[in-house]
């Protein structure tokens, strides 16, 4: 089938419905920020209208305040960067008291990214978010299973279907049936679909793909790793082909009946509308903008506007019509 089949001539970008459906929750736009790349939204306000975003996905939060890792915490790499922040933050209570109310007051939708050192901590963090007065402004929780599992030599949960499922089960039990839960997958695995399946069967309503790739950069001047903790997460345009591949694999597995049909949120290397459109065509119901925000905090607004034009030019009246389009025979 060629694109021509769907063409509706004369469609204007502003007529395109860019809202996104995430397992029953509707976001005003399919373009969000990525966790850890927009803090809790406040700093972006000087540059962009946070209320126009699909959602601000907040930095992954744990139970207690965390100082994060020593510095240097970043290394630039070709078309990408490594980071080793170490989930620095004020803890879930500060988030619920200070950040979520600010977002609500600004008219922004929040997706709260939760993390923990064991399944119980994940569950407790999630419980405090959904039971807080600020919960009304929270569209979904994103479960960051790419963080170190204290009980398993610090290996990340997302490396193993069993550990991933344990986390999702704990969070699902803590929040009840009605909360939308996105499991955020790591690309550093042999069998992405197997881990996705474990997450969905354990209660994930959707999947976010991808978190960063593990990388190392060495400073040839000092002859030592550039990051204080040696390894870091690789992000940015460099990883886009891996993100598109992961989204493609998840969608293909759903089409083949190997994975329950759930929405996928595409993340990785989105710096412009075409990047976002690639993820959507591969199967993403919505996209997140991460590292590109660092160079241009108005990237999500640019992506939103550009996606509307791309869809309109192709006669696609809504984001939903484009989701997974590249799989059509």
């Amino acid at each position, binding site marked *: 089938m060629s694109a021509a089949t769907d063409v509706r001539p004369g469609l204007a970008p502003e007529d395109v419905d860019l809202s996104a459906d995430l397992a029953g929750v509707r976001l005003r736009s399919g373009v969000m920020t990525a966790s850890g790349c927009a803090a809790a939204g406040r700093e972006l306000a000087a540059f962009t209208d946070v209320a126009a975003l699909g959602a601000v996905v907040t930095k992954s939060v744990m139970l207690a305040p965390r*100082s994060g890792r020593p510095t240097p915490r970043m290394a630039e790499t070709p078309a990408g960067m490594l980071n080793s922040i170490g989930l*620095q933050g004020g803890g879930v209570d500060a988030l619920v008291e200070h950040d979520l109310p600010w977002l609500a007051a600004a008219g922004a939708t929040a997706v709260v990214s939760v993390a923990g050192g064991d399944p119980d901590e994940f569950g407790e963090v999630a419980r405090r978010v959904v039971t807080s007065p600020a919960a009304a402004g929270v569209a979904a929780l994103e479960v960051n299973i790419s963080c170190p599992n204290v009980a398993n030599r610090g290996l990340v949960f997302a490396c193993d279907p069993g550990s991933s499922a344990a986390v999702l089960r704990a969070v699902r039990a803590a929040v009840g049936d009605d909360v939308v839960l996105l499991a955020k997958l790591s690309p550093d695995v042999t069998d992405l679909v197997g881990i996705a399946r474990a997450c969905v069967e354990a209660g994930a309503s959707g999947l976010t793909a991808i978190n960063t790739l593990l990388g190392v950069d060495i400073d040839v001047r000092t002859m030592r790793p550039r990051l204080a903790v040696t390894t870091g997460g690789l992000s940015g345009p460099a990883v886009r082909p891996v993100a598109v591949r992961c989204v493609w694999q998840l969608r293909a597995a759903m089409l083949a009946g190997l994975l329950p049909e759930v929405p996928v949120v595409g993340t990785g290397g989105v710096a412009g509308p075409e990047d976002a459109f690639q993820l959507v065509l591969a199967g993403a119901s919505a996209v997140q903008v991460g590292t590109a925000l660092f160079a241009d905090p108005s990237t999500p607004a640019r992506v939103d506007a550009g996606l509307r034009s791309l869809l309109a030019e192709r006669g696609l009246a809504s984001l939903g019509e484009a989701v997974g389009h590249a799989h059509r025979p």
Partner: protein
Amino acid sequence: MSVVGGGAPEPLGVVTPGAAGDPADLVDPADEAGPSAGAVLVDAPVLSAGPDGACTRLVVHAPAAAAAARPGQFAACSTGDSGMLLRRSFSIAAADPAAGTLDLVVAVAGAGTARVAALREGDRLSVVAPLGRPYALPPAGEGVVLVGGGYGAAPLAWVGRLLRRRGSRVDLVVGAATRERLLGDTTPAADDGVLDAPVDAVHVTTDDGSAGTRGRVTDVLGPLLAAGGARHVLACGPMAMLRAVHVVAAAAGASTQLATEESMACGIGVCMTCVLPVVGDDGRTRMVRACTDGPVFPGERLRWDAIGAPAPQRPAGVGARVPDDAVGAPAPVAAVGGAR
């Protein structure tokens, strides 16, 4: 001025005792409207580009940024090379609201600064500015010593002019490795002409003695403070120099405001790459963002014991530890792998 540690903002307190003088010079815009208030992203035409010492001075047209900029703030810049994701930060060396221009002084350190320094008149530079907290100007009329190392000297002429306008006596101490690396006019007889600075006196040091006093800026700073007059030091330069300035100033009972230079991915406070261990008003240490809570910090608030300290696998002088007593410091459990 407030320093954010973890999620919740907490006040750090006013830096300079008894704020006075021109209020416009003292109100920190970030306290009013959040970080990066007044900052703009602009595709700025390069009006001129030429050598300044061993550096390149660029003048770019960015009227809104020029109107908002204050000394100590920085500009985050990109030449548009698609393989280099992150902006490069430069102190704003001067801002002329009337002409709508920003001056940047660029030292080539690697590939990114090389591209910036290679710009020619008529090229364009994408600029986000002004970013960060400026120097809080000391009370009007009180003596101030400005200290700059290498390209760190760039913004000091600008701050000197503002201070003198407020009635302060201003001494400028500039250091460099050699005469050639000094910014501005360095003809041998004209030490006073260095930087063409609107200050009361200029004191030059070079490591090799090829201009001014042979030695470090602190060799001049110590006697200058001991001679009395100035109780405020404003400095800009490499962390090792800032540390030495702080030690010398503290010994002389002077306060310091130090413009730090951490690796920054975003420059606007969203990524947490640029943190330094800083003591808050409550006496507790937090890992605080140099981009939005700095880059200018009071020297006495920085946890020098944890900054640039030799860590396993790292040469001295690079990065900062998380002090064990910092808020949220890790329990001593060995964590392996990449928590992001």
